[in-house]
């Protein structure tokens, strides 16, 4: 489930889509991102959600939403049917990391992935102090976290290289949603990537 309040990554994603583009938002929650992209950028949108309450909320928001479990991939979705496939703050909750990344780039021309950076300095500090980090972008206690994969900007980029995925753009944000340019793997709390298949 996604937190829909104060989402600085939404603005980054909005900057990467064009009017008329088809956007698929995986783990779309109540459809807030799609609603924003439809209203502000004129895209056409669809969401995928597993949770009943979110399905209902998205329908109430007038958003196309498909109930499904991302752990089962995007079976049945046609190849290259979307311009962008978004996975916003959800990659860390999916067990089949490579599977979902591969599926995103099968059904979409581009994938947009945002995730909390485990190597953010405050997270490092928390671990050095002997505790698992709890922060703006990692807001859960270790015992109730939906997150099952903990990784950093460098880890993600290494995986992309291994999978032949090309990083087209990257935007890194601090806890307050401000853009980070220096030492992103240390000063960045949340990363947003725009990736495609290598040709």
């Amino acid at each position: 489930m996604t937190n829909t309040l104060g989402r600085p990554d939404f603005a980054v994603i909005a900057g990467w889509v064009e009017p008329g583009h088809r956007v698929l938002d995986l783990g779309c929650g109540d459809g807030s991102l799609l609603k924003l992209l439809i209203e502000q950028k004129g895209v056409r949108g669809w969401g995928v959600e597993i949770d009943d309450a979110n399905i209902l909320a998205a329908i109430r928001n007038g958003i196309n939403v498909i109930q499904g479990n991302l752990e089962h991939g995007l079976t049945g979705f046609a190849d290259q049917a979307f311009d962008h496939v978004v996975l916003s703050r959800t990659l860390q909750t999916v067990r089949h990391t490579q599977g979902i990344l591969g599926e995103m780039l099968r059904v979409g021309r581009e994938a947009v992935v945002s995730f909390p950076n485990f190597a953010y300095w405050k997270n490092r500090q928390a671990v050095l102090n002997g505790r698992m980090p709890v922060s703006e972008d990692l807001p859960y206690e270790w015992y109730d976290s939906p997150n099952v994969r903990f990784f950093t900007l460098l880890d993600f980029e290494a995986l992309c290289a291994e999978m032949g995925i090309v990083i087209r753009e990257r935007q890194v944000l601090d806890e307050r949603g401000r853009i980070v340019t220096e030492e992103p793997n240390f000063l960045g709390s949340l990363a947003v990537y725009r990736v495609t298949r290598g040709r």
Partner: protein
Amino acid sequence: MAGQNQGVGQVEAQRAHFATPLALRSGGVIPEYDLVYETYGQLNAAKSNAILVCHALSGHHHVAGHYADQPDNVGWWDNIVGPGRPLDTDRFFIVGVNNLGGCHGSTGPSSINPATGKPWGADFPMVAVIDWVKAQARLADQLGIDAWAAVMGGSLGGMQALRWSITFPERVRHAIIVAAAPKLSAQNIAFNDVARQAILTDPDFHGGHYYEHNTRPVRGLRLARMLGHITYLSDDQMGEKFGRELRNGAFSFGFDVEFEIESYLRYQGDKFAGYFDANTYLLMTKALDYFDPAREDNGDLTATLARSRAGFLVISFSTDWRFTPARSKEIVHALLARGRDVSYAEIDLNFGHDSFLMADPHYHAVVGSYLARITL
């Protein structure tokens, strides 16, 4: 829904006559015909608030409310239609119609064939889903409805909604397809054929002309319904509801009713065989078997649905093994491939295929929320 829980109250069936012949998918022609229908709520001045509710195998036009002289005869989908209910009659004008070939007042095998002066019986031409939709479109013409705000149905009713969106794309603004499939599987057809064989081999069937013999193939129809009922329920639900319970607490080592499930199925079979017409049952199951709109596009459902212009809400049920969620998703994925507006909900309910008739709060909220956002 919550609160007063008042339905549409007292309703009356109406009859429309169509004097223009209808050419059928099978090559046959119905020279003239009647359709019986009911309406609930008020058609607005722009005639933009009409919803057509299509019925399934054994359904009819009496969707909601009750008759003045039959207060216990409540419509088959009453729980979803009414003021404040998902199909809100304060906002929408709801139409239920008994399909051609039916046995609840519309022209069907038990009607008189004008050419012979006798009941049609087995001579009634084979009707397909597309024929029903064309007949319904003529009723819409009579009612002055150019485009439905929504066409909706469960099971075979959902297939009519799908067919509407393909055959009359400009006349369907939204299609709500519940517990349906884009075509039947071999297993689905197999069950239908066993049901038909039960009727066709009943000595009282008389080749479909049993009306003239003052009899009815009650045994065959009863078996057909018993078999059908097994496929409408989930294994879990059957287990929970009946288990291995014995009516008299001990084995009686005979063939009379012993297990509660036997009692239930025989009761359902007897009840159904008491009022339903066997020829109609045969026609309806064949219409199911033949349904395959993608056949027009060499099996490419994506190409077929590309002709639709409607927004879609597709709903399936977790325990439905007659038309599983995977079958509904075939429709969803074909629509997604062409960038159509579609939402899909998979409802966790324990009643198998029959779940679509249940008043589950989440299920009804999904339907109600979708309809609430339709602009009129």
